[in-house]
């Protein structure tokens, strides 16, 4: 296939030209979170020919994601988002080197991964990762392209651009527990992350191309219900930047957010708790866990709600490695069952723990 005309519509623009397209090819962009915001941003950046694109997401595709996370389809349910996104995007544009990171950004790994890229697109759905990205971008002098949403509204901004303000200059401290509802509790019109994610892709390309006005020191607020787009100016807070740089590491905050809030580790449990254990493995998988409080409910079976609805303790699903149990818990949550968790460890560790 002849690909030489691929970027013709970019190159035709006097603001871009071949020089601009070469800049896009040299760019290295890390997209953290391949969900509602990440999907559209990734698609456009890949189509645009960004040289290297990193995709980081520990999460798996669940059925309730498909309403807005447009890279995925029904066959992807239960698969890791970063790996799925890599699969589709490498078919879209073989010029682009795509690297997936199917795990979470953590205090320990943030510097190592962010350092490899020129800029980061924040496609996360939680404050914990957002502050982590911000702090690490300030420390490593990387641009952070921010997007976030609530129901029918979204916010876009660019942080740490040419010594500009950071996320902490706008919101110095993460909200306290329960102050702002997390994503699994709030509905959102499916197109909202699309609009916001594309704004993030657009800012990213403008920064790479050095054209137009970048949303640095500006917060763009979009409301799709009433068509209002408002840009608010805000100032850099030198104290916030100095505090971070003096500390030389990210400011620790408690992780109380979304995509981890239904995972539990054995170390967080006491043997006195009232727990209903759900084995979501198929019946021929070993080792079997034989205990009065274990209910066998293979993931492949339809969810039977009867056994769960009256139980008042913790419902904890497990499998071999903690991946299928997350899919199962998401299914229960989608059906309105709240007190359910996914065990991070597997059946073997559960037996060793003493069940």
């Amino acid at each position, binding site marked *: 296939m002849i690909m030489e005309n691929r970027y013709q519509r970019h190159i035709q623009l006097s603001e871009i030209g071949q020089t601009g397209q070469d800049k896009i090819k040299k760019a290295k962009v890390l997209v953290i979170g391949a969900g509602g915001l990440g999907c559209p941003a990734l698609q456009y950046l890949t189509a645009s020919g960004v040289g290297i694109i990193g995709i980081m997401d520990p999460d798996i595709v669940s059925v309730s994601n498909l309403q807005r996370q447009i890279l995925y389809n029904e066959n992807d349910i239960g698969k890791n988002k970063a790996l799925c996104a890599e699969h589709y995007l490498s078919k879209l544009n073989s010029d682009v080197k795509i690297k997936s990171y199917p795990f979470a950004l953590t205090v320990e790994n943030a510097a190592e991964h962010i350092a490899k890229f020129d800029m980061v697109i924040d496609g996360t*759905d939680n*404050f914990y990762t*957002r502050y982590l990205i911000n702090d690490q971008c300030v420390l490593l002098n990387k641009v952070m392209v921010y997007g976030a*949403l*609530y129901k029918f509204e979204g916010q876009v901004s660019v942080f740490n651009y040419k010594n500009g303000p950071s996320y902490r200059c706008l919101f110095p401290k993460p*909200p306290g527990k329960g102050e*702002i509802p997390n*994503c699994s509790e709030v509905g959102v019109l499916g197109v909202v992350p699309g609009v916001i994610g594309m704004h993030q892709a657009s800012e990213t390309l403008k920064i790479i191309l050095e054209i137009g006005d970048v949303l640095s020191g500006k917060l763009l607020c979009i409301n799709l219900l009433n068509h209002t787009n408002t840009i*608010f100016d*805000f100032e850099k807070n030198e104290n916030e930047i100095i505090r971070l740089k003096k500390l030389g590491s990210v400011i620790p905050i408690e992780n109380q957010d979304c995509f981890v809030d239904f995972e539990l580790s054995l170390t967080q449990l006491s043997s006195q708790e009232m727990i209903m254990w759900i084995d979501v493995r198929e019946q021929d998988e070993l080792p079997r866990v034989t205990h009065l409080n274990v209910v066998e409910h293979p993931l492949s079976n339809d969810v039977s709600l009867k056994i769960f609805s009256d139980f008042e303790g913790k419902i904890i699903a497990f499998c071999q490695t903690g991946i299928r149990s997350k899919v199962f818990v998401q299914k229960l949550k989608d059906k309105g069952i709240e007190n359910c968790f996914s065990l991070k460890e597997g059946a073997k560790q559960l037996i060793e723990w003493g069940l």
Partner: protein
Amino acid sequence: MEIKVRYFGQLQEITGVKEASFTLPFDTIGSLRAHLITIYPDLKNINFKIAQDNKIDSDLSDLNGTLIDLLPPFSGG
């Protein structure tokens, strides 16, 4: 002087309105915030920013704008 106050995101749910007008005089952004918290006590728990005439300002700043916007952080993605 009348000021128009607009609520963004979940602040609309806390206050039950999208916008409101006030004719009371407020010296500073902080005094407006304190007044709103007396009307809507749940606002106390939200760390929202206040913009006047499209500029986000600190609570210590004089309130001299006529369009006031209350902006909470968003977490969704």
